[in-house]
């Protein structure tokens, strides 16, 4: 009936996938099944919509957790179209387009979900000049004040305020260079 045509339509599907992504990967609260149905498939019967939602969520989850590249995606979606109770060719096209646009962002979100400790979110700093002696020839030494924002998912950030003299900044920079070398070596061998 009319509901079937709408369920197989393209524009609402794109919106549906966005809604699923918002709820599952981008942490947007309050996106309910009712909301999605009302906005995108108002003519569809609730049980029909539920089935569609489940199917699309499942497909997206498979694609996302495997972080599929274009070849894998094509193979996977083709297989889905051939399956009993699978997806249509039109739906496959919409899903493919959606994944191309959202892959990086969804991947980043999934990686974040596995970060349970504090993460460096932001860094602010300033350099002050500290006057040192009361003698006539004043020796001014610079000191850096650094504020690091450390946060966990869904929690208020902790702010770490630190002081660095020039020697400490040098020491820090040296360590960071070591880390950089290590990462470069890693990414070159993979």
């Amino acid at each position, binding site marked *: 009936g009319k509901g079937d045509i709408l369920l197989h339509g393209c524009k609402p599907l794109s919106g549906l996938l966005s809604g699923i992504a918002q709820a599952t990967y981008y942490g947007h609260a309050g996106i309910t099944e009712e909301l999605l149905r009302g906005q995108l498939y108002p003519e569809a019967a609730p049980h029909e919509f539920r089935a569609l939602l489940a199917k699309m969520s499942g497909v997206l989850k498979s694609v996302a957790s495997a972080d599929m590249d274009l070849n894998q995606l094509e193979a996977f979606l083709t297989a889905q179209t051939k399956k009993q109770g699978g997806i249509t060719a039109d739906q496959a096209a919409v899903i493919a387009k959606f994944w191309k646009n959202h892959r990086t962002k969804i*991947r980043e979100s999934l990686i974040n979900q*596995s970060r349970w400790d504090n993460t460096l979110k932001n860094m602010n700093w300033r350099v002050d000049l500290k006057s040192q002696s009361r003698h006539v020839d004043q020796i001014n030494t610079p000191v850096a004040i650094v504020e690091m924002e450390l946060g966990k998912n869904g929690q208020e950030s902790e702010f770490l305020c*630190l002081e660095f003299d*020039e020697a400490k*900044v040098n020491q*820090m*920079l040296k360590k960071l260079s070591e880390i950089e070398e290590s990462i470069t070596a890693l990414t070159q061998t993979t």
Partner: protein
Amino acid sequence: MAAAGKAGSPPYSHPGHGESSLGRVSFLGARPPAEVEAMAGGLRGLSQETFRRLLTVVVSALEGKDCKESVRAIAESVDLSEEQLTSLISGMYTLLREALRLPVSTFKQEVSTRSAWCLDKLRIPEEFIMDFAGVVFGNRHPVVEATTMKQGNKLPSVNDIKWRVDVAISTSSLARALQPSILMLLKLSDGTAHRFEVPVVKFQELRYNVALILKEMNDLEKRSILKIQD
């Protein structure tokens, strides 16, 4: 955050020679801090023994020692509510801390003046004033040292940096992650340690910023050297 100063009563204005006592502000400021006033009220009716026990605890606290046990012991043996106890201790702590900020010589000039202790306003019983004075004029050294160390106007600095590069192969959300991430452990001068993860992109930002800080410091030094030569 850095302690640039302390909130509360205005600083004691040092009296010049020959100034009358009328123009002087006591070490507690024109208006004593609320907790000191509250304490003064609570002192009436307090036994000297209890007062002295509290005073010992407060002095220990000023010396930077952990006083939880002592306070608990007093709370259990004395007929005072937690609120009353807290009020007394915080008031006594503030009073002594302010008094100890000043050099002894400044204080000695005031000791005979009732206004120094805001006695008329606070009405602290005479015998308790003697005990307070004993602390202020007694052996201050450990207390002063402890307070200056604690309230130092310096932020903690980094003593040691440890790091690790991890590569997440697979996670519950991502079957094939292969994502490198940096784990850093900063040991600070105040004894604390902070562990956090730095995503690769943030790491590049961090490295860039630190290099920029160094450049700023060098530039500033050059500029200040030039200034002196002027």
